[in-house]
């Protein structure tokens, strides 16, 4: 196993970079980070639309949420893979395809987190702000969102973990992320399948378990902070 790591660690980490496209673990992390970053604004808009008082805004977004949540991510990836070129008229590379699929998929899931975050606040907050003369938008902007976003932080870290796991599905469209690279290594070595895939699993585990502990700690810290604040 050590020999395997010694021979292939660089390939596993960055793919063929700098002699070829970036790949491996770095690409996985990059995709997950960009996916979450771009889906955040989308999730925020969708989440607020889901609980908006305007029906023409609420209904289409609710339908979209049900549509995307009812289909596997793999389906979304295929739609993006086959139909992005048709829409844009250009050939789309795998990274862009995956990113688009991730942003749509995560945007919808984040919308539910945002919605839960807003609905989780006491109703009095909104009523209070409105009776003080703030408009709906102002209430959201200054009163509701700052509190809701803070409560959402641990969920966001968990969503990042999910996104890291989701990037593995890029494998199927030939995206050179870490699972794909592991399979390439497996083909090259041939005799050490068990070790190769064990190392792949271990890599994901270290990454995601570390992050989930961080989310756990964050939740505790936020909760403690709130109690201290309430007491003083």
């Amino acid at each position, binding site marked *: 196993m050590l020999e395997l790591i010694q021979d292939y660690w660089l390939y596993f980490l960055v793919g063929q970079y700098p002699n070829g496209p970036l790949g491996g673990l770095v690409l996985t992390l990059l995709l997950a980070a960009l996916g979450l970053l771009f889906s955040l604004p989308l999730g925020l808009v969708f989440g607020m639309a889901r609980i908006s008082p305007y029906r023409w805004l609420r209904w289409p977004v609710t339908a979209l949420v049900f549509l995307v949540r009812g289909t596997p991510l793999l389906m979304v990836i295929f739609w993006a893979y086959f139909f992005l070129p048709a829409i844009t008229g250009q050939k789309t590379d795998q990274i862009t395809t995956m990113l688009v699929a991730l942003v749509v998929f995560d945007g919808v899931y984040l919308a539910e987190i945002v919605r839960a975050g807003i609905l989780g606040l006491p109703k009095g907050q909104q009523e209070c702000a409105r009776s003080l003369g703030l408009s709906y938008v102002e209430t959201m902007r200054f009163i509701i969102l700052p509190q809701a976003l803070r409560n959402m932080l641990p969920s966001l870290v968990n969503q990042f*973990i999910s996104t890291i796991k989701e990037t593995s599905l890029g494998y199927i469209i030939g995206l050179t992320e870490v699972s794909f690279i592991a399979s390439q290594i497996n083909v090259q070595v041939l005799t050490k399948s068990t070790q190769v895939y064990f190392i792949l699993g271990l890599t994901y585990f270290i990454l995601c378990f570390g992050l989930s502990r961080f989310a756990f700690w964050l939740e505790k810290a936020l909760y403690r902070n709130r109690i201290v604040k309430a007491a003083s």
Partner: protein
Amino acid sequence: MQFDFSLLLSGKYHDWLLHGLAVSLGLTVVTLVLALPLAVLVALCRLAPSKILNGIAFTFVEAIRNVPLLAHLLFWYFGAPELLPDDIKQWLYDGNIEIVSAVVGLTFYTSAYMAEDIRSGIRGIPKEQMEAGRAMGFGFIQTMRLIILPQALRITVPPLISQTLNLWKNTSIATVIGVAELMYQAQKVETDSFRSVEAFAFATAAYLTVSLLITGLAAWYHHRYPVRTL
């Protein structure tokens, strides 16, 4: 290119896709039947009054949940058979090893998530219930079976239904190791006929329909058996 409905209504592509749907549904049911008891067992281990059992169950859950399903399936398909003795390996390769790997991977993956749902359902029952049960002279297992689990069931079933929904969607990933389920058949139709819109529209509609049925089931359960609070 026009959307060709007749392609989906009859002929060999129709048969391929329906066969895929049947395999996907079968995969979901078999996995569910295997994963549920395993999940209950793991959840009980996490709550049992034994440090060793707690540790084993915790490791099981975390090791599985923090690795993507794709990596699980790759491991069970390519990696794990290497560890088996030759005659068992041969027997597996003669049979349908794709399906076996997929069921094993999906079962472990699903049971880890379900175990956590069951655990939090059980923990949602006030501690005094357990203490009272024990004080009345019931053993740990008896208290669980007669007092805690019947109450916990109402809290646990809705998240379990939503895990079933996840399982249904996760079966699509089995296409990666070549299980002939819905997604695989849709791709096959696509390569064979270049009718990608029809093939993927069928698959999407099928996934969506079953997902909505499962969501509906959850809503019905929630309405029919609301959580009772003390």
